């Protein structure tokens, strides 16, 4: 980073985005280009890359080497697991979840996409959208990502042809529209030569839209979470019972959506008891308002029996229903297929309860989106299921509220995380 990139201390926002693809799509080169042109690669890292490049008998700088972390990945030239990378411009700080493209590592791609606000999907201009591009687009939409950038890369190999770019767009758009992602952006680029990544370059004058970095700097960050009703799942109860605070009873948690102010009327779920927010604290400070995703502590006007896993919900809109059964889409992660004899635990918004998978509706062929009727669920399957839980959870559909609609399944005997799920109807 250089001096002009010194970020102003208190005004920068954070954008998390994921990139999906394989080394052969030019994904690593793209990330390398983004970091290199944004001046976020350090000299000693460059030196070590130059050293490895020449050790392999190649010339120059293989920017792709930047993005592979594990020994096995460098040996095989593939991405196995998510790597997180960081860079900043004067406007924003970015966290990149660099995810693998191969089908067998779908679970790792889903890990990276689950916390992202935006996804970049790479398309090789020569090849157009592949089955893999469709899979990445589908998984990104399934995980509720609202901004999808289709980076049509390697434009240098098709003479920077605008016809080729528009053909690819025409071919892919109907599929993407079917997925219902609210914001789609197509950008032609050459990561290798740096056109339309950070700089505009001289080769794509016919393209009038933003460069990749301009888009990353300007898409709205998480506006949805702030507009939905206030939800605060209780994580811990604070009762210091010290001389200084004999009767203090605070409820700690992270606001998962919306905002809260002192005086706001709230409902405690599942009990349904009504009260008001008295104070909001962050460390020593008392706040006049707090918004998602702040981790705060609140006190309430009334003494009510509240424990971890209960939900403090603002009264302004409809309240989530405590539910005991629901439909969900899940992504299965475990090498061991779903076994109905096994007990699974569901972890949802600070509540961990026993769960039974009652029905498998269908599994989705993630390459064609066709539904198949299967008796069981295997590793990397996306499946529609019906679940029952032993105690109620306070859920909302994932498309309305990512945090109250998401859950994981844990195998009680192995402790492994076997699936991630998104609630459809609550």
């Amino acid at each position: 980073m250089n001096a002009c990139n010194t970020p102003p201390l208190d005004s920068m926002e954070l954008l998390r985005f994921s990139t999906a693809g394989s080394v052969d799509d030019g994904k690593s080169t793209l990330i390398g280009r983004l970091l290199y042109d944004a001046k976020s690669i350090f000299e000693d890292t460059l030196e070590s890359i130059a050293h490895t490049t020449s050790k392999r008998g190649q010339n120059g700088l293989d920017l792709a080497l930047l993005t592979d972390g594990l020994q096995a990945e460098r040996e095989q030239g593939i991405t196995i697991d998510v790597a997180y990378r960081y860079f900043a411009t004067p406007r924003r700080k970015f966290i990149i979840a660099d995810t693998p493209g191969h089908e067998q590592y779908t679970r790792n791609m889903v890990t990276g996409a689950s916390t992202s606000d935006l996804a970049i999907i790479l398309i090789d201009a020569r090849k157009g959208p592949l089955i893999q591009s469709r899979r990445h687009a589908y998984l990104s939409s399934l995980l509720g990502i609202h901004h999808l950038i289709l980076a049509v890369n390697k434009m240098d190999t098709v003479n920077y042809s605008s016809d080729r770019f528009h053909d690819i767009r025409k071919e892919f758009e109907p599929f993407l529209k079917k997925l219902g992602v609210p914001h789609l952006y197509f950008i032609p680029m050459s990561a290798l030569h740096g056109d339309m990544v950070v700089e505009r370059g001289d080769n794509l004058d016919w393209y009038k839209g933003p460069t990749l970095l301009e888009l990353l700097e300007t898409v709205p960050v998480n506006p949805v979470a702030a507009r939905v009703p206030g939800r605060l799942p209780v994580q811990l109860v604070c009762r210091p019972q010290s001389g200084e605070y004999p009767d203090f009873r605070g409820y700690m948690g992270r606001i998962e959506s919306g905002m809260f102010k002192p005086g706001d009327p709230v409902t405690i779920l599942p009990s349904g008891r009504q009260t008001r927010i008295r104070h909001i604290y962050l460390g020593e400070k008392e706040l006049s308002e707090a918004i998602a995703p702040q981790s705060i502590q609140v006190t309430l006007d009334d003494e009510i029996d509240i424990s971890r896993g209960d939900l403090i919900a603002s009264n302004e809109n409809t309240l989530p229903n405590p539910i005991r059964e629901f439909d969900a889409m899940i992504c299965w992660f475990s090498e061991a297929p779903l076994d109905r004899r096994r007990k699974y635990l569901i972890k949802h918004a600070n509540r961990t309860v026993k769960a039974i998978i009652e029905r498998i509706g269908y599994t989705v062929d993630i390459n064609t989106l066709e539904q198949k009727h299967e008796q069981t669920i295997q590793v990397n399957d996306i499946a529609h299921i019906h679940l029952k839980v032993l105690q109620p959870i306070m859920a909302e559909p994932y498309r309305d509220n990512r945090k109250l609609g998401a859950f994981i399944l844990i195998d009680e005997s192995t402790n492994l995380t076997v699936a991630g799920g998104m609630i459809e109807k609550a």
Partner: protein
Amino acid sequence: MSFKHLTHLDTLESEAIHIIREVAAECKNPVLLFSGGKDSIVMLRLAQKAFLPGKIPFPLMHIDTEHNFPEVIEFRDRRVNELEARLIVRSVQKSIDTGRVIEKPGQSRNTLQTTTLLDAIEEFRFDACFGGARRDEEKARAKERIFSFRDEFGQWDPRNQRPELWDLYNTRVHPGEHMRVFPISNWTELDIWQYILNEQLEVPSLYYAHERDVIERNGALLPVSHLVIPKPGETPRRMTVRFRTVGDMSCTCPVISEARDANDIILETAMTRITERGATRMDDKTSDTSMELRKKEGYF
């Protein structure tokens, strides 16, 4: 209707507090690794903010190489007293004396800490250890989960990590296994200094520019001390330097700097062209995979 936006530091702080509270809620016997370095100072502040007006509900632990800078140990003890926290110290020297590990001449004690750390985890039956590691430090760390599972031998299996979706952390372990938990995974060196400035946190004086006798060895500066004695041909020079990391005195290198407060350091960090570990840790230069290998064995 307009909406307040959180800054990137607000967001990172919130994420870290959420993680710290999650461990307190779900793990039976957590511990926070505290060395007196800047990352663990930030960790300690986050833990304090997470539980106020209550106290931090777990002990702190330092795996002491006894190759530490005296300023850091003095700072460590003072900070622990201020917070009325409980500090456990386990010594690498003792592991050497009792034959648990063998110290090779010329080797730093950073690697040797692994055995002492794993022994202490077993001794106290900790099921979760907070660490201040950041993903921007090193490429193996960039791959590690926030809740990083360790088997009964304390080992990390990078090819078989638990999927970690949203902020739904699976904290469950069997007896003998444990979690390493990294609440500041997503922070960069610059974020750490901005937070130190915003929160007005005190850090050991050697993070700021000061005069010190140094020698040049293998292309790096080394501080002269009882552990670094100039060899024939090496002439100590008095220079104005500061440390970007504080660790084993025998292999932690200062950088030439005039940065005298957190503001100066932020400017300097924003402009620097060398990574934190590349500049300051001789032991990380050994190979492309030295951190990955150490982490697999149970290192921080």
